[in-house]
């Protein structure tokens, strides 16, 4: 009798073990299915990205080829037309170059193969330099720029100087391009908030509706009307800037409403948290 009882409890024990194993298997299968779905989604996104990039590259090539052939086929073409077409070929070549550079930059950053030259930086200096670099763009479009970074010592941060410049130039030139020539006002502020350095670039352009706040950071997404005949962006500037700031350990976001301008802000972690009890956003009057 003891043997039979023993066997019975053994069988029960085995049965419980089997049940447990079966549950574990089910869970593992669920996990694998989810991972597979994610991979398929990533694959589709990669396909979409490649397809979009191909489309974006082919577009400027189309006018370059078409106008070149038109000029070749008609040596007697009127001078004003010839000049116009050649100017377009040159502009489209530049646009294509910018696009190729940005696609490569984005691919390098995302694949982790970009080289980062991280050093200790004085963000105030980098801001001043980026303002200097974009000053002609501001002058040409008669947009006023106010820099509110004077008079205070800001802690250092560690970042790649060239790429930080890239982000600032991206934000500043976006601001110029959305403002109406002659009426535009752009303000760039620097402050400290909760262990981070924060830079704000504010424009008085048409603004962005809350529904589109995240869209502007999507690759190739162009939001809003192109009112003026300004050069079309590539749609990659903001996505690249965001990835750069995130690599530095910060965040890049926008606050805006239609008709109320836009403020693009990013943060950079400070080397050491700012000493002192009161840590509030320090806005320096410009």
């Amino acid at each position, binding site marked *: 009798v003891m043997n039979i009882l023993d066997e019975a409890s053994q069988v029960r024990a085995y049965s419980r073990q089997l049940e447990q194993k079966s549950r574990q298997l089910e869970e593992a299968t669920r996990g694998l299915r989810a991972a597979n779905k994610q991979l398929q989604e990533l694959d589709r996104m990669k396909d979409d990205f490649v397809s979009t990039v191909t489309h974006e590259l*082919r577009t400027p*090539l*189309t006018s370059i*080829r*078409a106008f070149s*052939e*038109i000029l070749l086929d008609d040596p007697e073409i009127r001078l004003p*037309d010839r000049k116009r077409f050649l100017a377009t070929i040159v502009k489209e070549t530049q646009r294509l170059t910018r696009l190729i550079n940005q696609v490569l930059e984005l691919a390098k950053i995302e694949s982790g193969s970009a080289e980062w030259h991280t050093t200790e930086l004085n963000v105030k200096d980098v801001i001043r330099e980026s303002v200097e670099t974009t000053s002609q763009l501001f002058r040409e479009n008669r947009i006023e720029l106010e820099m509110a970074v004077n008079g205070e010592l800001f802690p250092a941060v560690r970042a790649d100087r060239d790429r930080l410049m890239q982000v600032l130039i991206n934000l500043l030139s976006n601001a110029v391009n959305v403002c109406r020539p002659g009426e535009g006002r752009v303000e760039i502020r620097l402050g400290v908030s909760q262990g981070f350095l924060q830079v704000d670039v504010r424009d008085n352009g048409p603004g962005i509706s809350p529904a589109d706040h995240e869209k502007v950071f999507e690759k190739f997404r162009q939001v809003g009307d192109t009112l003026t005949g300004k050069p079309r962006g590539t749609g990659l500037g903001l996505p690249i800037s965001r990835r750069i700031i995130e690599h530095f350990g910060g965040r890049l976001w926008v606050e805006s409403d239609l008709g109320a301008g836009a403020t693009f802000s990013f943060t950079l972690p400070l080397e050491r948290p700012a000493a002192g009890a009161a840590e509030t956003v320090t806005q320096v009057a410009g």
Partner: protein
Amino acid sequence: MAKRILIVDDEPNIVASLEYLMKREGFEVQVAVDGEAGLKAATGSAPDLVLLDIMLPKMNGFEVCERLRADPRSRGMKIVMLTAKGRQADTARGMAAGADLYVTKPFSTRELVAQVKQLLSQSG
């Protein structure tokens, strides 16, 4: 009477090159810069041939083509899809939507002109 070509594309430079090309060949040219406007222009003014891009604001080229084919007024209209989308699936979809021809960008101006002329001679 000169044949009329409707160009539907939202890229100003491509529109400029197509417009110049078609005018050079003696055609009358009309332009629409988004899908909705393209559909309206095609059904409204009955062009002989439409050069139709796919990636358009408001309504994409596939849909414009399908609607034109569904409409008895435009069923006989010649439709040439002219697009930077070049995958097999896109070509198949274009032809299924009822396009007479599917041309990928960048295109050869000579070939395009020859094909447009041939399509137009078919409709008499």
